[in-house]
């Protein structure tokens, strides 16, 4: 790169800031945990993971961490993921494909509404009202 002007430095900082913030975990209390056991991977958990990262990027959400874990025990509805948001119940979603992943980001994380038709555990699936309690 050639020598920069003040404006160029500022726009470079803005561009690279997002990348490094993803590395930072401080202050990130919202978490998406993806089950990456053999069952999850076989059912497409990696595509789900990529879809979550893409959706967060698309909506410029930087304060959410995406981590992996092993099998959550619900192998019949893989890929499974857990979403932890303060002020909302921890929820385990199942059968999360790419499209559902995007929906979870937009509904659960951005709008604060549960995606009821994919909840399989925690809180128990049968007490969830179909309209997400609204």
């Amino acid at each position, binding site marked *: 790169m050639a020598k*920069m002007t003040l404006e160029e*430095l500022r726009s470079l*900082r803005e561009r*690279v*800031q997002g990348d490094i913030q993803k*590395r*930072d975990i401080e202050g990130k209390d919202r978490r998406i945990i993806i089950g990456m056991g053999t069952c999850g*991977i076989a059912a497409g958990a990696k595509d789900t993971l990529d879809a979550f990262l893409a959706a967060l990027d698309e909506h410029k959400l930087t304060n959410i961490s995406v981590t992996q874990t*092993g099998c959550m025990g619900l192998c019949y509805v893989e890929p499974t993921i857990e979403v932890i948001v303060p002020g909302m119940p921890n929820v385990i979603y199942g059968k999360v494909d790419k499209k559902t992943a995007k929906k979870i980001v937009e509904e659960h994380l951005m709008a604060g509404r549960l995606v009821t038709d994919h909840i399989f555990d925690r809180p128990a699936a049968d007490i969830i009202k179909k309209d997400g309690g609204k």
Partner: protein
Amino acid sequence: MAFRNYILVCGGTACESVKSQQIYQNLIAACKEHDVADEVQIVMTGCFGFCEQGPIVKILPEDAFYVKVKPEDADEIIREHIVKGRQVERLLYDKSGSTRHARVEDIQFYQKQFRIVLRNCGFINPESIDEYIAREGYQALERALFEMTSDEIIEELKSSGLRGRGGAGFPTWMKWNFTRQVKNDIKYVVCNADEGDPGAYMDRSTLEGDPHSVLEAMTICGKTVGANKGYIYIRAEYPLAISRLEIAMAQAREYGLLGNNILGSGFDFDIEIRLGAGAFVCGEETALLQSIEGKRGMPQPRPPFPAVKGLWGQPTVISNVETWANVPVIITRGASWFNKIGTADSKGTKVFALTGKIRNSGLVEVPMGTTLREIIFDIGGGIANDKKFKAVQTGGPSGGVLTEEYLDTPIDFGSLVKAGSMMGSGGMIVMDEDDCIVDVVKFYLDFSVDESCGKCAPCRIGGKSLARILEKITKGNGTVEDIDTMRTIGEAMKKGSLCALGQTTPNPILSSLDHFHDEYLAHIVDKKCPAGKCKDLISYWILEDKCTGCTACARKCPVNAISGARKEVHVIDQNACIQCGACYETCRFDAIEIR
């Protein structure tokens, strides 16, 4: 595509020496093999500080902290953690032996630390200017060039309360202000990276982990005081720090953050590296400036101070690495943020290199006002091998030895001096009951005598005389009068020496004479070394009731001083014994005693 995991591999000198470079290469290879190479970013960072447990590999966003990693562990880390989402339990940091601590925030070593100087160490890739820029980097320079006047910058430094971290604790803003007020076409900015205290490596780690912070600070200073040229004086024994600095300087020049017309502001500033040959006295600022000029490194009388008449006779601001690394943060976050940290007369944090008989040795940054006890027992985890704490030496060869009763001393410039030691540059060496104070003091004194430049008599002759007396005492030939003689010589050196080296050489003796008077007397009067370190004052004896006649000691003895038949009690010939301690180390039955 966005990365889903970040693997940070420590690239500090300590971890490099235990193959962290190989770990880095193996991690890259393993990522390729498992087809995750484009999903994981692997970064070689600066020092994490927890050198005791190195090499360290940290994985984000899980915040998993892997310790003592070996190159062959790389494949398992990728296969298990990255591909399967299962953390590699056996590599996680484990303090108690029962619970594995997965996350950094659970590790006690980091709990009382607060990182300003080391803010980027162990987080960014020090060889990437973009990563530094992403972490508020060069934002302070922007402000200094386009938004703030020199008056405002100096005012900000003044109200921040920043004092020099090299030892003396002189207010930084005053140095800048002195130089600024001198009307002169040529002025210089110098970074003192000649870190020489035994056991200290704060500055090396800062330069290795975050070189741009120092470059940015020096440029800001240049703008403020009207200097266009800077020098970094660094010892040639720091090859990694030098190469990272060179990379950083090349990147900054390419981006137009060093050189002519920085960011189009019309301000020119560039920096050159000068390598030191490792003379301790060159850490003294006037000697350092002599050395940059190509002369023999010898201190010069002050005043005139370098701020007024320094390098090649021109006004020069000279500060050490840690001081510089604080400056960009103060300008970016503001003095009011900085001066809330620390104590009334010492603001901000201090980095210490914690070494010696401590469980968690490493690099530690704490707010001023933290007590020695917190550093040694909470962060440092206490004394290794469950031995008893004896003393802590702060401030390197210029500092003093502090005993248990001073453990609750808050660490700031004033309190440590009052306790009879000093902050120094930040070396902190912990001693346990097996260390002999006279022996330790003799080590420091020998160091200072070796490193004395010989220019002024109090330091040259005084140091040598003190060393001779100490030698006499450890040989068992000391007299009670020697104690007074050492005090007299020490006080004279403090008053009469030209520079801080000579003035502080007697400090370890003077402080230990106060705190460990009995131990000196034991050497002088009883001709005994209570810790069993001074060879001429100890003898080894075999206990008849414990010796099994295994012959192990006799076989180890290098001078064949041990005799005895198999399965019979052995005897040491005291005339032949050279007190090497080999038999003591070898005996598995505790049958050998030091008297």
